[in-house]
């Protein structure tokens, strides 16, 4: 069995993002982390691999720095090998990422692809679904429990109002939710081993995707409008007056 898992680098949600002067992108001098949902996907792949003797492969897409997150976030935790697809992150959208993953699936022939349900930077929540559609594979998104039984994956999904249990036939695409598992921490030994694990470097033309254009481009970024300071009111009457005449919510 072979499991392909995503290892996307995202900006640290705790970091203060600074927008470039021309408003086209964020300043690159910022702390990055492995996407938390991808951490769940990596842990899922490792647990399935331990139970089913599977080979595991982590995929990251972006500039050369992405390799650090493949090694520290995935290989150091126990994923067997990595693939880094060199690409300009400003020129990527969900559609093109799904196409890259599809090409890798065709190259590697995994039985299962596990992705984070979304990346916490763009919050698009599209790649898993697009990939399943492009491959013509069954999909089970927002997984909170995953088991392989024979040629099926039994997935419990978190949906509005409760849990839904699905059986999808392998090969399949699964996207991981936060409650799927508690991602393990990398050990020092794991970090050392990760430095020696194979990490294949590919470019888009290696996957016959050279010249592919994203369908969605970021046109402009800007900071949220600042909130004006609140005021103290003397009594309820003044409050009602202000809500009526100034805030116009009554």
């Amino acid at each position: 069995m072979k499991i392909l898992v995503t290892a996307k680098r995202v900006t640290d949600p705790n970091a203060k993002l600074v927008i470039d002067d021309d408003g086209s992108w964020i300043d690159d001098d910022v702390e990055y982390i492995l996407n938390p949902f991808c951490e769940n996907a990596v842990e899922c792949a490792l647990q399935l691999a331990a139970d089913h003797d599977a080979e595991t492969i982590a995929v990251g897409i972006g500039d050369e720095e992405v390799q650090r997150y493949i090694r520290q976030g995935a290989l150091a935790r126990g994923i067997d090998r990595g693939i880094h697809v060199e690409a300009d992150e400003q020129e990527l959208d969900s559609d093109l990422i799904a196409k890259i993953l599809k090409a890798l699936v065709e190259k590697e022939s995994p039985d299962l692809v596990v992705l984070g349900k979304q990346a916490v930077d763009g919050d698009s929540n599209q790649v898993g679904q697009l990939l399943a559609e492009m491959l013509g594979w069954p999909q089970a998104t927002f997984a909170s429990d995953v088991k392989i039984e024979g040629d099926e994956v039994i997935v419990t999904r978190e949906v509005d109002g409760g849990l839904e249990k699905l059986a999808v036939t392998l090969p399949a695409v699964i996207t991981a939710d936060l409650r799927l598992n508690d991602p393990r921490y990398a050990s020092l030994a794991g970090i050392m081993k990760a430095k020696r694990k194979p990490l294949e470097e590919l470019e888009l033309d290696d996957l016959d995707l050279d010249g592919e254009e994203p369908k969605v481009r970021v046109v402009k970024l800007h900071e949220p409008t600042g909130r004006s300071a609140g005021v103290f009111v003397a009594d309820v009457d003044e409050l009602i007056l202000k809500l009526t005449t100034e805030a116009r919510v009554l």
Partner: protein
Amino acid sequence: MTRPDTSRPDTSLISRDPGLCARYQRDVSIVAGLPDAVLRPRDTLDVKQAIAACAGTNTAVLPVGGQTSTTGASVPVGGGLVLDMTAFELTSGDPEIDAETGHIRTGPGVTLATLRDLAARHGWDLPVDPTSAATCTIGGAVATNASGPSSFRHGAMAAWVDAVQLVDGRGRAHSLRRPQVPKVAMGPAALQDPVRWMVGSEGTLGVMTQITVRLRRRAEAVVGALVGFDTRDGLLAAVASLRRRRDLGLRALEWLDAGCCQLLVPHARGLRMPSGQGGALFLTVEGDRTLAPDQLQTLLERLPPHGGAAADAQLLLTSQQLQAFDVLRHHVPDELNQVGRRLANEAGGGKLSTDWSAPIAALPALFDWGDAAFADLGLVGLYRYGHIGDGHPHLNLMCPNAEVRDQALAQLRAQLVRVVAAGGVPVSEHGIGKLKRELVAPYLPPGARAAWLGLKAEFDPAGILAPGNLFAR
């Protein structure tokens, strides 16, 4: 001298509502005391008027913030007026940061976490991180000279306070500033920095109304590791070894003994708690984004000769992982406090804890002595954790009843004698408050109490400010 301003009514905001007063009768310690009234000052004028009024009637005044004291410092034993300073920020405006020079000027009621976040957003660090950072106020942190894991590298609150404004026990406002030059020769060293008089004074000299802290440039990265040890002596030897490489950006060096590690197993979520008899060391390193992990690795390589399982060390390489560990380790005091309260309610027992620190070299003998002294007392648990890099472990004795508690307390006092003889101090970070006043008294340096009384005579001659805190009058 500035006379109290009496130009506007001073009682309109004072509440004697029993329900409101009851909210202030406890802090995190076991001390309890009901105030007669509560005032939530809006500004310095409110504070001045309240203190002037109380001075006239010899009424006790206790400023409180988040009431996170573990020593009863923020409990109004004996009644009086509580000044709840948490509303102060609302009318004094948001904290102001000078992002060029790295300073924050703030009212006293802002939480430490708020200021740390503000600093971080501008690329600065306020490296004081007590367990209570999310709920303690900067006023309380300054009043108790708060510290935390990062104090191993960056010192306690006193190192970061540049200036304070306060209202003294006569209702006078003062603005005190740390000398801004490195060379000062105005009398004895202890008297050269008036800000130091206020840091750690636990509200006994004045009510702080504005605080200016300086900041340091934020490190690009902080990374950490959790490492298990076979034996306690091995762990202590490793601590001594790590301390020799502070140059590698070592920011914090914390210990969880084997019992504490077991307490955390149900909460660990992905983290494997070490199971060795020596417990676990948690260390963090700060530095350059690409170099910090290598610095951490170099430090970890020093541990195997001392029985440290460096290869199995779990690495915390992101701020999320470090935050998660911070939340995790707080389960230890939370659970021990919970058990302690239950034991106290059931049979008058409870948790006894220490706050002493001693030179690292003295720790093995002190721990061995403690093992023997506490072994036959009938304790239901003994847990050690804390700031081992500073020689500052927290010992927690879980006493099933009052009899065991009294015996354990006697042994703790006997241990303090050994701590001080070894060059240590009886209290290291939680302040003295009301609980540790008697405990500390025998170990005060000559003249310390007299010096404080001298300051009291100047700043609070009537003795209305925070009575019971710090030293007996």
